[in-house]
């Protein structure tokens, strides 16, 4: 939906973060007739549940005696499907400005602008961002010769590529780019990999054929000029190995940091959590709410179920911000034909009302 960037898309609520809390907020807003857009730095919804523990069981989701992290995300997506929220994935929310009419404009690092009547910060533990190696002069090379993700394979075609890391991303891209790059060297601190065994054997086979080189060691230094990489030094047990290279892909997992929201002028706790009240889960800026792991109030528990509860209360409060002249009727999904219409389910007999 990045079609026309000159005219920002209008929503009732913009939700920063598509973790379980942000996803459930779509549902609570949807019941009230409010539409939403979800923005997340990850390229998939689900936040920590899908990024950090998709296969692990969770036992304290009410009425789910056990469900995996990914299972929970899938069920939430199914539950919110009727409300057709827009997803802007793979983009970080950066700036926020308030317009004269009181609505907000939110910008992303991909250049999108979203116009929203209220904002829900459901940013969890913060933005997932790639961990960067600690190397002198790294910044000059970043986004020119050093990358943390593959946006287009063409950037590596015909290149002498070094891939650093020992997880699935490092292994998968080694296997993928071996046919397009001029050379591929995989660098990892140990000869054990935290990746699918099949990818490890495939990499070993390519190594045996001489198509991939594996070096056990750590990145020690980058050489080159004006952001163009020419050589990478690797610290190994046997001394420094110099690799001629003009591209580096580093996969050291993800770091989590509050990121740009810290600059929004909101009242923070410890510099990394957003303070809210417990009536509306509103921040120190009216119209901006914070729900889920990112917020702080006396007695806060960082549990998924707390995020769900907070989403419901914030949604009711947001209704009054977005539709100041309308009256909010409290209704149950079991008995309201209006809610059932919004949910796209066959309304039960009128008598139920």
């Amino acid at each position: 939906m990045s079609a026309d960037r000159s005219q920002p898309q209008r929503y009732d609520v913009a939700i920063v973060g598509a973790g379980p809390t942000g996803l459930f907020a779509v549902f609570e807003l949807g019941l009230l007739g409010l539409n939403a857009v979800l923005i997340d730095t990850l390229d998939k919804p689900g936040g920590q549940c899908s990024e950090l523990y998709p296969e692990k069981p969770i036992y304290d989701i009410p009425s789910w005696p056990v469900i995996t992290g990914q299972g929970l995300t899938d069920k939430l997506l199914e539950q919110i499907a009727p409300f057709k929220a827009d997803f802007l994935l793979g983009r970080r929310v950066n700036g926020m400005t308030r317009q004269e009419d009181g609505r907000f404009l939110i910008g992303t690092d991909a250049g999108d602008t979203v116009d929203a009547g209220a904002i829900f910060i459901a940013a969890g533990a913060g933005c997932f961002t790639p961990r960067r190696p600690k190397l002198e002069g790294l910044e000059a090379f970043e986004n020119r010769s050093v990358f943390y993700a593959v946006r287009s394979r063409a950037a590596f075609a015909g290149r002498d590529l070094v891939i650093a890391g020992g997880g699935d991303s490092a292994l998968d891209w080694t296997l993928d780019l071996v046919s397009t790059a001029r050379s591929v060297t995989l660098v990892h601190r140990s000869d054990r990999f935290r990746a699918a065994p099949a990818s490890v054997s495939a990499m070993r086979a390519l190594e045996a054929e001489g198509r991939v080189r594996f070096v056990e060691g750590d990145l020690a230094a980058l050489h080159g000029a004006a952001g163009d990489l020419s050589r990478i030094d690797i610290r190994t047990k046997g001394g420094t190995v110099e690799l001629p290279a003009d591209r580096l892909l580093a996969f050291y997992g993800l770091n989590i940091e509050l990121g740009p929201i810290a600059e929004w002028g909101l009242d923070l706790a410890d510099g990394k959590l957003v303070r809210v009240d417990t009536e509306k889960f509103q921040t120190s800026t009216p119209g901006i709410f914070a729900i889920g792991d990112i917020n702080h109030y006396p007695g806060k528990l960082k549990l998924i179920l707390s995020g769900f509860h907070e989403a419901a209360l914030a949604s009711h409060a947001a209704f009054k911000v977005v539709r100041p002249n309308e009256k909010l009727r409290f209704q149950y999904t079991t008995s309201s034909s209006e809610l059932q219409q919004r949910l796209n389910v066959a309304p039960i007999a009128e008598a139920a009302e």
Partner: protein
Amino acid sequence: MSETGAKIVVIDRAGERHVLETVEGWRVMEILRDQNTGIEGICGGSCDCATCHVIVDPAWADRLPAPRDEELDKLDELPLIEKTSRLSCQIIWSDALDGLTVTIPEAA
């Protein structure tokens, strides 16, 4: 808190030294997180997030139970580690560790 008064010594990201209370049976991550040392422990101790990385004083490294493969593999994901790097969620406090000294490295 520990009945014997066993203490853990922590050097935080600002380089300041703190002598902290401990609780027998708690993960070191939990002890550090509870006392606002800047340790996050986002995953609650399941070796999934590496936000509880500490560097153990070399004098103590061999006196701790050795890391399991899962911990070593997670540590290997970090761009920079030291020989005595550990994930503090994988160290269970016992009063025998009285005086254990750890440094919290700069966030990666």
